[in-house]
């Protein structure tokens, strides 16, 4: 248990609990979802159950969806941390599309009202700048579990190309083919004008431009990006790449 010093008494488990209390608290503190349950959750939110670490997910997706047209050697290297996070973003978009598909499908019964999901993307809430923190997403009053298991997967399949395309662009940058990366990123923006990863695509574009020595262009794009995404991890990264701030 990793606990910084504070003004609270020692936890009961460390000091002062009876044997019975320790037994109860210890059992509850160590409870974990079964591996099967973890895998099911991961799958439902769009991450591969086989790779809760995301590098393998990107590798699989990139190889599967885009290899024929994007690039060889996709997925052999590490992915950006935000691509990892992006798998979750895919799940969000996937869920939205999944819900939409119920509306559109004449053969699929719509879920009962009690089974409909909360909006996957909560409206922004004011943050808590003093703590550098972000307030938690607010479930809607009608939010109800379970989320529609199995509905997310097909939508994620539709969206796989997005992440693969971006991964291919990243690999192209790493391989020194930044011109090719710009082509892939343009294709992404044309194909997915409201894509889940537009910020990531813009960040990659900044990086590709810098690699090509088109620094003024990169800087302009970076400044716009940082203004639009101020305070985010991605904005920090873009700032560093474009030389807006020194690392």
């Amino acid at each position, binding site marked *: *248990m*990793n*606990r910084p010093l*504070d*003004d*609270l*008494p020692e*936890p*009961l*488990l460390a000091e002062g609990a*009876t044997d*019975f*209390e320790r*037994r*109860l*608290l*210890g*059992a*509850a*503190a160590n*409870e974990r*979802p079964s591996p099967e349950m*973890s895998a099911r*959750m*991961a799958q*439902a*939110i769009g*991450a591969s159950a086989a790779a809760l670490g995301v590098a393998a997910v990107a590798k699989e997706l990139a190889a599967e969806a885009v290899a024929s047209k994007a690039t060889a050697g996709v997925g052999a290297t590490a992915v950006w941390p*935000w691509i990892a*996070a*992006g798998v*979750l*973003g895919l*799940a*969000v978009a996937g*869920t939205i599309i999944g819900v939409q598909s119920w509306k559109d499908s004449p053969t699929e019964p719509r879920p009962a009202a009690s089974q409909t*999901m*909360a909006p*996957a*993307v*909560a409206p*922004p809430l004011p943050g808590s700048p003093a*703590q*550098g*923190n*972000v*307030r*938690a*997403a*607010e*479930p809607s009053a009608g*939010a*109800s*579990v*379970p*989320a529609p298991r199995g509905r997310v997967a097909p939508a994620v399949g539709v969206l796989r190309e997005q992440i693969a395309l971006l991964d291919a662009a990243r690999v192209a940058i790493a391989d020194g083919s930044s011109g090719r990366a710009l082509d892939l990123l343009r294709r992404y923006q044309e194909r997915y004008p409201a894509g889940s990863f537009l910020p990531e695509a813009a960040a990659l574009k900044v990086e590709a431009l810098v690699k090509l020595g088109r620094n003024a262009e990169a800087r302009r794009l970076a400044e716009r990006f940082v203004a639009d*995404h101020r305070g*985010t*991890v*991605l904005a920090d990264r873009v700032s560093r790449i474009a030389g807006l701030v020194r690392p």
Partner: protein
Amino acid sequence: MFNDHHAIVWRALRRRGLAPDAAADATQETFLLAAGRLPDIRPESERAFLIQTALRMAHTLSRKVVRWELDEDMDKRLSGLRDADERRADIQLCDLALARVNPELAEVFVLYELEGLSSPEIAALLEIPLGSVASRLRRAREQFRAAAARIERSLRKEGEA
């Protein structure tokens, strides 16, 4: 993020009275909600954000979640628990005791005693003053320990019978 934090999110929901499957569903939904906010979440505050979201979700769901009503049927439930495997029974007994604790106090208790969060972390996460964390924890302990003692006495009585 999922790999690092899904267990604690799931556990936080379990301690709020959700069954394992319902907690898994709510965990899933918590991560989906978080995904929509990814650009806004600082890496060091991911855990707090997720737990906060999960607790809000549990609060939203609370009307639909049947928590054990202890005063009347604790004895009946205790006899049922004897059949469960020991560890699972201990978890259920812990939840039984937690269900006797005022929910506001129980949140602090769970985050501190079971999840090892610090006082400032809990204060930030629950958006309460630091002093309230200490006072809630003190009262939660009193309630939890009284409930645990009662459960232990009941079990002993059953063992003697």
